[in-house]
């Protein structure tokens, strides 16, 4: 299988909370185009939104940009969310990574820190690159077992529809 991306999509937006939804919708549209299932698309939306929220919350003291890059492969999608801001302390962000500990007293529960945990749970592969700013690289593989597609990527009609 060739390792070259079939298509590449890139977008830059202000690193503000009101644009996280725009990134989410974009990724949803791209993933739908590629042929991901409803549940996989919802997972992708959440993972990407979490990565963007990290940029919005931590990357810049003042205004800055967040960048989205989607590489579409035959069998997977690779999404990069990056900033070129102050390299925030990612290790601090990774501390306490994990689900909520139900044995802890309620008063000690943390309100933040679930974002990276969710990204790790919802994507197949997650890498972090910190050369200039922070780039989080998230991969999700395409499962094509439920619906057969014809050469144009249009789902084949089911038996019920044929009748």
């Amino acid at each position, binding site marked *: 299988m060739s390792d070259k991306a079939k298509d590449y999509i890139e977008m830059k937006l202000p690193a503000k909370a009101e644009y996280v939804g725009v990134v989410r919708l974009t990724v949803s549209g791209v993933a739908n185009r590629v042929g991901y299932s409803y549940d996989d698309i919802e997972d992708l939306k959440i993972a990407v939104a979490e990565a963007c929220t990290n940029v919005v919350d931590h990357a810049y003291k003042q205004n800055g940009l967040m960048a989205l890059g989607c590489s579409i492969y035959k069998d997977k999608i690779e999404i990069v969310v990056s900033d070129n801001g102050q390299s925030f302390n990612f290790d601090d962000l990774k501390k306490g990574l994990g689900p*909520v500990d139900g044995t802890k007293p309620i008063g000690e*529960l943390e309100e933040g820190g679930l974002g990276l*945990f969710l990204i790790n749970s919802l994507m197949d592969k997650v890498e972090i690159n910190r050369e200039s700013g922070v780039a989080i690289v998230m991969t999700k593989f395409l499962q094509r077992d439920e619906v057969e597609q014809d050469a144009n990527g249009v789902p084949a009609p089911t038996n019920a529809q044929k009748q």
Partner: protein
Amino acid sequence: MNLDIRTEEKDHRNILYVGGEIDAYTASQLREALLPLTEKDGTNVIVDLSGVDYIDSTGLGIFIGALKSSNSNNTTLKLIGLNSRVKRLFSITGLDEVMDIDEEREEAK
């Protein structure tokens, strides 16, 4: 892109109906509507999430904050009407272990 928030008081219970997508942008609206309810001593707060089709960690954080607040203010907090996607996030993060969650809507009972 705003949340649709409506409150209703009946039989000593405060029901908060939420609709829309709870994310980094809209979460503050939820916090402003929900936290004051959890601070009124002796109140039972019910949050109906049946109109919510998207939530991420920012939204989950608001509910953790609300749970802590209700715990220290002698109120109760219950979430109802979660769709399977929203419920899944509460399960993945382990929040369903610490929160009172009922998938059915109040009217369905």
